[in-house]
């Protein structure tokens, strides 16, 4: 059985016929049947932890190799990847990528179960399974976390389904449960993507549960769950994670003050359209144009804009940004319509032209519409260009039928922009979402300082920007518990900005260990976007990846057959240990939420927000809803990390006390002996 299930080397780069998708395909391209697709989501502290459980079935009469792929949503990082071997969960560990490949090859050569989960340059995960028996099932579990995107106080959780080119259709549909909590009161929970299939129950003004059973056409749309938060004035949320005697981690989510809304300056929006030859394929240029026109429609009059079409060289509509009034917009539409694709892609020239326009110190948003980075060798130069872009400049990306979505998403992440990807039917919707993210910062060049508590390793380091209605999250580490005075300084409009408040850093907090991974992911992302990826930087990425279980182009998840195999290769069970902490924390939250649900089984105020009869599947959606979520596997627990007897300061004090007592008694005994003699 083990030999039959042995999993060999991961494809380090996507095979051309494989698209980024949640699926398992045989080597000959045959899609495996998806028997079970269950998703449980827990949203808290502005972070969503998504548990995906999938069981694939080999429908063929032959033993075959298969490749698993999964496209992560933006701003997400893998927490864990498990494969079930003979019903037992094998938790993956992150190791240096080349070492992982070597271990995997050796194990596979000895007919042992081994697998590598690699993350491409960004968000696509791939796993090659060497052998699945005829008509056998393969169960896979993936946990990942993502930052919740909030724009104009509208928070959005996204589960990717739309980008599957050949989506496996589970026989029983997709079963999904979303437990969403918010630190601030929520006024409206909704599911615009599946309004008739998502059953939302509100249990308090800060907690709601969405239950979805999607079938048919519901499986080819991203699941989008949104809620409107009422923000606090200047400080939205503060969360910590600290184990005893270790550095603590925190996340601080900040918003610009309400009073600064009037200072929100108008934007210069630079729209860059790829018109290289590859854009002629599959109507990509037509879709990109449609998105571009939608972006134009949504530009407010106060903003200025310019359009740069590029292939080998950039062609600008105007010599500088112009006011977004209707006359100018009409000129733009006339400019866009005749554009045709030809030539090759020269990103550097286009981005360079966008950054060099007449800006007059206004904040700028560059929006790049492209089908991908054909010249992958240009990435370092592009990174360099992005790193030296003018201040207050974000870069957002709209990918059109691209395999480079990870690169585009990382460019957007690193510059404070956002990324969207056009699936076949929604070029305008994608553009509208990007347009809603084009917000000028209310506070720029912001810096944060702490006194009273030793805080270090802030991510992003500084400076950063604060927006009105769009939170900025800062992650960091702290040494010891205490109350810190926090000061934020920056520039709001032309005026200096200063805010102070106090924060309490606890000595022990095990409620949100995911903050530690998020800090590590932010740091890895920043290093990956560094203009120069030299040896020490790569070493740092590898160390961070191994310490915080972060898959990257230099680290991979390695799954081995059993604990002895890990011990044989001296691989510590760091991730298994982390997962235990994570599950304990989630269990605690789940029990709290369960008690809330018990208090009002039908929700508060009789609110049962379900839209009816909009979809042909509405009538069947609720019948098969699970009564409760099934957040965790009931499989055997994860293997222990390395063991140690740990003497600590407390035991050190006890030992010293024993020494002192012995010495005192010895002196007393000697004295009494001398007196006696």
């Amino acid at each position, binding site marked *: 059985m083990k030999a039959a299930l042995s999993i060999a080397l991961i494809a380090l780069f996507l095979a051309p016929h494989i698209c980024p998708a949640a699926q398992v395909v045989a080597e000959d391209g045959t899609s495996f049947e998806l028997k079970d697709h269950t998703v449980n989501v827990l949203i808290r502290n502005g972070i969503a932890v998504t548990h995906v459980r999938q069981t694939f079935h080999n429908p063929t009469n032959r033993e075959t190799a298969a490749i698993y792929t999964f496209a992560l949503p933006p701003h997400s990082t893998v927490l864990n990847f498990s494969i079930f071997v003979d019903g037992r969960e094998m938790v993956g560990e992150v190791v240096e990528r080349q070492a992982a490949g070597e271990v995997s090859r050796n194990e596979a050569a000895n007919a042992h179960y081994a697998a590598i989960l690699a993350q491409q340059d960004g968000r696509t995960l791939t796993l090659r399974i060497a052998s699945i028996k005829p008509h056998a099932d393969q169960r896979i579990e993936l946990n990942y976390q993502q930052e919740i995107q909030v724009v104009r106080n509208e928070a959005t959780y996204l589960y990717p389904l739309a980008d599957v080119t050949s989506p496996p259709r589970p026989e029983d549909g997709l079963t999904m449960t979303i437990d969403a909590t918010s630190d601030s009161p929520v006024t409206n929970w909704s599911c615009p993507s599946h309004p008739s299939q998502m059953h939302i129950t509100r249990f308090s003004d800060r907690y709601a549960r969405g239950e979805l059973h999607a079938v048919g056409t519901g499986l080819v749309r991203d699941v989008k769950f949104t809620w409107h938060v009422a923000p606090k004035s200047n400080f939205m949320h503060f969360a910590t994670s600290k184990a005893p005697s270790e550095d603590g981690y925190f996340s601080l989510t900040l918003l610009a003050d309400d009073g600064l809304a009037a200072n929100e300056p108008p934007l210069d929006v630079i729209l860059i359209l790829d018109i290289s030859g590859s854009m002629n394929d599959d109507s990509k240029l037509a879709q990109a144009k449609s998105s571009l026109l939608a972006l134009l429609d949504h530009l407010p009059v106060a903003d200025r804009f310019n359009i740069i079409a590029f292939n080998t060289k950039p062609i600008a509509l105007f010599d500088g940004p112009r006011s977004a009034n209707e006359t100018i917009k009409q000129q733009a539409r006339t400019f866009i319509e005749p554009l045709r694709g030809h030539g090759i892609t020269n990103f550097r020239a286009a981005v360079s032209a966008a950054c060099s326009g007449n800006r007059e110190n206004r904040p700028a948003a560059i929006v790049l519409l492209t089908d991908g980075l054909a010249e992958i060798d240009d990435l370092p130069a592009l990174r360099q260009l992005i790193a030296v872009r003018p201040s207050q400049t974000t870069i957002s990306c709209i990918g059109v039928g691209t395999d480079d979505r990870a690169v585009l998403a990382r460019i957007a992440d690193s510059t404070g922009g956002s990324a969207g990807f056009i699936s076949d039917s929604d070029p305008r919707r994608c553009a509208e979402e990007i347009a809603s993210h084009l917000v000028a910062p209310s506070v720029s060049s912001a810096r944060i300082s702490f006194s009273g508590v030793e805080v270090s390793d802030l991510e992003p380091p500084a400076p950063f920007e604060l927006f009105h209605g769009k939170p900025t999250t800062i992650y960091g580490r702290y040494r010891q518990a205490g109350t810190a005075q926090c000061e934020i300084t920056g520039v709001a409009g032309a005026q200096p900005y200063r805010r102070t408040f106090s924060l309490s850093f606890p000595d022990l907090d095990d409620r949100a260990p995911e903050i530690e991974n998020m800090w590590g992911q932010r740091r890895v992302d920043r290093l990956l976007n560094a203009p120069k990826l030299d040896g020490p930087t790569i070493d740092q990425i590898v160390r961070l990846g191994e310490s915080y279980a972060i898959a990257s182009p230099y680290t991979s998840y390695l799954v081995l057959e059993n604990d002895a195999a890990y011990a044989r290769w001296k691989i*510590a069970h760091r991730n298994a240990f982390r997962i235990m902490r994570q599950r304990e924390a989630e269990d605690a939250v789940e029990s709290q939420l369960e008690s809330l649900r018990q208090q009002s089984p039908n929700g508060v105020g009789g609110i049962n927000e379900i839209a009816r009869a909009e979809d042909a599947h509405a009538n069947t959606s609720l019948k098969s809803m699970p009564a409760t979520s099934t957040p965790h596997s009931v499989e055997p627990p994860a293997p222990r*990390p390395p*063991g*140690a007897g740990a003497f600590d300061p407390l035991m050190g004090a006890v*030992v010293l006390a*024993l020494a002192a*007592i012995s010495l005192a008694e010895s002196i007393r005994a000697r004295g009494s002996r001398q007196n006696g003699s």
Partner: protein
Amino acid sequence: MGPEPHPSMAGRGNRARLSSIEEASFSARLMRWPLITMIIAGACVALPRWPTTEQFLQFDRAALLNGQIWRLLTCHLAHWSASHEIWSVGAFAVLGMLGEIRDRRAFAICCIAAALACSLALLLFWPDVQLYRGMSGVDSALFIWLVVFNLRPSSDHRYSAAHKIALVLLLIAFIAKVAWEGQTHHSLFVVSDQSSFVSLPGVHAVGGAVGICVGMFRPRSFFQLEYRYN
């Protein structure tokens, strides 16, 4: 400095005899030093300079089952991190000095018995532990052994009530810590640095049991031995 020679031995013919007596005196003084403790602690401190050696010494279930039985004893010399080592070896140094200068034989028996018992317990009762390092099982044995010695009735010395109460409080603190860790699966103050390891309080309990056995079945008390040296 050796003792002053007796006037009767100051003659030229007695020089050779005097020399041998000085050597014997030097050996006796040397033997009063906690040599075993110093050697073991020194080895523990030196080992991290050769990380591959630590891997060769650690408790590795697969390697043990393949016949590398020296790991039963040597795993206690290796550690996962600097802070892990500082606390474990530091405690061993203090406990070793207290114990070895009083009864070297009992000290050696306690160390070897605790090392073997902890490793065997890991092998037999914690099958999911693949790797283990650390001196704290031996530390626990030495600690309990010394406390039991101090609490045992002595014919040579009458212990004060305060002394006994203090020892009992220390014993309670030790048991409470081990019990709390065993109950909650968390460690108080464990510093794991970059090396994620899990504390195994059960090893402390096994070490403590060894300490009780050595203390109970070794009839000489703490202060009897001290008087012998004095």
